[in-house]
């Protein structure tokens, strides 16, 4: 059977809010699966950092006024990860939940760093020891039908509790809120509720933590896990395995997924559609959202993103959902109708990782030789060339703290990353230093490379293989699906993969730690199970120690400086060939007054309107 031309999609990771720079390092793999799901992606565009004319760039402050009414169509290639807001954790899903669910805190369109109170009345009150977080909620927010009653703090409590139920299987609750007292007893089934969550009255909720991680916990309250769920209605659905609350969910936001009178969703069919309609119980006066649109139809399954992108550009009332326009279409849009394009830095990089734990790349000079010889310009061309973003010269991405401090676009200054097209003579020098007098690799074993089949990823993998051949290596390229590549090969040290040509990382939020910790911290290596994200298995004690220190720095500039320094140290170790910092491109029909949610990196449905 042939599966040709399935174009790529972007399923960028959702950034978790940085609540406190000292937050747990356990967020390490936050971006892993997101990247896993997105590497066929064409998250691309002219980087805001590189396109001096700013064509297509989203302005710092967007106009938030619009006309009420109308139906917006969102074209998507795939489904949300989980329709259940308690399990949702992808950018595209958050696009939906941010319009249907009111968590305690939420992100306005223009501020990707600081959330604003949503269900909460004001910022969270964190005790001095960081062990108690208190939030007051608005008394007059109501659930959509069939529940129809006002939200209380009990509902927020249940929303958090159910996230810990195995039938819901929330992927981040444990990481951000695992320190709440009583979580273990609850997840083990020994307690019926989480004792550490207090609701002294209907509008107050208190989180009691066993450690001083209140900052992290408060940060997580800007995720849908803190959206209220009515227990008397939801419990029967949560008792099912898996929970069916997702397809019976009630909303608190301006929109709800279309449902029948009993609350069963009629507007959701996995892989087909998600239809949002106005929530009749939503009170505009309690919300910062504008909610101009009357109806939003998300139409999934548009696997041919070239066709879908053209439909959006030529048609009416449409925006993209989980995919970016493919390179060729993007160039066209960039050149002819750039006003329909919205470019935002993705905060991500792509690199070819070298397994530093195994021969031959346990040899630093051999690694440097590889970096020196790589034609990274050709690598970038596989994704569409300069328009898709600048060539990466180190690992922290543009617009993330520490980027400039680490050397900015120019790089950290190492000679082996000085030549975007590669430098064979320099590479041979390093090979000689590495113990290969001819300047060429003389070992006879094959290099196991595991890449992603299909599309731009396969092109990049195949090109990467030829780069190794320049120095006499014998790469043996194996192409598998992206999920398989990560979970069975590159994320599994036992698989002994030497080169992973299709890996990359996206920020969780605008903090350099989220770029480097999970990917290059030797302490982060997961020896087996298929979810290691330190693909080069870089384990340099001095770097590990520097990270442990830097995690505890509170002052932002000092923190950025420390992580920039770590970036320099990592780059000097040449664990991987960085080759692009790419951007996210969103597109809209001409009659759509689109507003981008910068935190989420895609259209904000609660602010977008029709002209």
């Amino acid at each position, binding site marked *: 059977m*042939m599966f040709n031309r399935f174009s790529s999609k972007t399923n960028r990771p959702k950034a978790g809010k940085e609540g406190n720079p000292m937050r747990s390092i356990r967020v390490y793999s*936050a971006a892993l*699966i*997101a990247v896993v799901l997105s590497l066929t992606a064409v998250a691309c565009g002219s980087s805001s950092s590189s396109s001096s004319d700013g064509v297509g760039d989203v302005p710092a402050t967007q106009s938030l006024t619009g006309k009420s009414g109308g139906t917006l169509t969102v074209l998507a290639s795939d*489904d949300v990860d*989980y329709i259940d807001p308690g399990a949702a954790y992808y950018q595209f899903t958050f696009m939906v939940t941010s319009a249907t669910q009111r968590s305690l805190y939420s992100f306005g369109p223009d501020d990707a760093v600081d959330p604003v109170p949503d269900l909460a009345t004001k910022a969270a009150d964190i005790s001095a020891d960081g062990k108690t977080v208190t939030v007051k909620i608005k008394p007059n927010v109501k659930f959509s039908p069939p529940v129809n009653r006002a939200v209380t703090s009990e509902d927020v409590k249940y929303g958090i509790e159910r996230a810990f139920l195995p039938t819901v299987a929330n992927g981040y609750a444990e990481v951000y809120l695992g320190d709440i007292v009583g979580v273990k007893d609850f997840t083990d089934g020994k307690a019926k509720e989480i004792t550490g969550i207090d609701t002294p009255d209907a509008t107050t909720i208190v989180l009691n933590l066993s450690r001083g991680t209140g900052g992290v916990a408060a940060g997580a309250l800007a995720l849908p896990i803190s959206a209220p769920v009515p227990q008397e209605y939801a419990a029967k659905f949560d008792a099912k395995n898996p929970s069916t609350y997702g397809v019976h969910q009630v909303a608190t936001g301006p929109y709800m997924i279309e449902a029948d009178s009993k609350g069963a969703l009629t507007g959701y069919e996995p*892989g087909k559609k998600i239809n949002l309609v106005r929530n009749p119980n939503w009170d505009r006066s309690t919300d910062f959202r504008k909610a101009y649109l009357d109806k939003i139809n998300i139409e999934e*399954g548009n696997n041919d993103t070239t066709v879908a992108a*053209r*439909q959006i550009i030529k048609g009416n009332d449409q925006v993209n959902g989980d995919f970016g326009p493919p390179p060729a279409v993007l160039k066209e849009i960039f050149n002819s109708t750039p006003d329909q394009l919205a470019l935002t830095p993705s905060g991500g990089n792509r690199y070819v990782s070298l397994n530093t734990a195994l021969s031959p790349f346990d040899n630093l000079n051999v690694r440097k030789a590889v970096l020196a010889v790589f034609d990274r310009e050709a690598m970038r061309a596989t994704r569409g060339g300069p328009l898709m973003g600048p060539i990466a010269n180190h690992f922290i991405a543009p617009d993330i703290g520490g980027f400039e401090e680490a050397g900015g676009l120019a790089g950290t200054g190492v000679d082996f990353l000085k030549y975007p097209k590669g430098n064979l003579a320099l590479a041979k020098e390093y090979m000689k230093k590495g113990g290969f007098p001819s300047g060429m690799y003389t070992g006879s074993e094959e290099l196991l490379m595991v890449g992603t089949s299909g599309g731009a990823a396969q092109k990049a993998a195949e090109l990467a293989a030829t780069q190794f051949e320049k120095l006499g290596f014998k790469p043996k390229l194996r192409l598998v699906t992206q999920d398989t590549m990560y979970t069975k090969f590159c994320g599994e040290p036992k698989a002994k993969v030497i080169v992973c040509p299709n890996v990359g990382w996206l920020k969780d939020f605008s903090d350099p730690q989220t770029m480097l910790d999970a990917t290059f911290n030797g302490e982060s290596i997961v020896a087996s199970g298929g979810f290691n994200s330190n693909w080069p298995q870089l384990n340099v004690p001095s770097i590990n120690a520097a990270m442990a220190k830097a995690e505890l720095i509170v002052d932002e500039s000092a923190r950025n400086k420390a992580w920039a320094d770590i970036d320099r140290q990592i780059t000097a170790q040449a664990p991987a060939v960085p080759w692009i910092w790419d951007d996210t491109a969103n597109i809209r029909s001409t009659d759509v007054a689109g507003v981008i949610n910068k935190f989420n990196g895609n259209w904000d449905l609660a602010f977008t309107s029709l002209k």
Partner: protein
Amino acid sequence: MIRYILRRLIWVVVLLFAVSFVTFVIFYLLPSADPAVLRAGRQANPALVASIRHQLGLDQPWYVQYGRYMKDLIFHFDFGFSYQNGMPVRQLIFSRLPASISLAAGAAFLWLVIGIGVGIIAAVRPRTKLDRASMGLALVGISAPVYWLGLVALYLFSSDIGLIPILPGANSYVPLSEDPFSWFTSLIMPWCVLAVSFAAFYSRLLRGNLTEVLGEDYIRTARAKGLSERRVVFRHGLRSAITPIVTIFGLDLGILLGGAILTETVFNIPGIGRLSYSSIVRSDLPVIQGTVLLGAFFIVFANLFVDIFYAFLDPRVRYE
């Protein structure tokens, strides 16, 4: 005949068992993504993965998992839940069946009418320009990749991105129950695109068969009786020439009911084909199992119907 059908039905069941078993084994033997790790999400940690693995029953030996699956399937007609979105597989499949059936049935009608029509015209006028032109065109039709054809059709005729915007394009499918007229117009292009290669193939096949049959002695007998050429071709010739087509048609239809992946994809029709494709990409075993079983079901039943129908068409088969 009844006994024959019963015997065949038993075989169908055995075959479906075998198919489900092989799918299961392949899934476990070949490296594919670990569903538990995928489901664990971005914040995967060993404890969470282990607990999900337990929830999904993936910590059991494969034969226990298979046994459990078959038990649910046989006793409750329960295909399990998608690892990906937690939805019941049965519901996923049944909600997509109408689209696949609409697509396959409409296209089948088209390609039968066109394929048989062109085949007859070419066969009764052998070696004429009309014959050569239609058979040449058919060869092109057979070779044209469906996906490419679909894109060409979209860029030519779709109302949003086409040069001659006359037909609803990709993503316009509407269920028959919602709006019959839109259902029909939205499927015109997919039907045509899907039918092209089949029509081409059938016309060539029928031309070959019919040419051969028209040289048979019993056709000479029919002519010697004084029958009109029309009656000779349609009643005597076609009756024989169509029989092999019935076999192939049954199988083709069976396969397509199991999902026309490329056509469904290029036109974004929410059918079984796309469901099975996305489930394979995501290592969503329960959905893979469900769609594979459904496909196998259609194919073996198509086979059975073909064989039974064949007996009605060809009296010689009945007595063997």
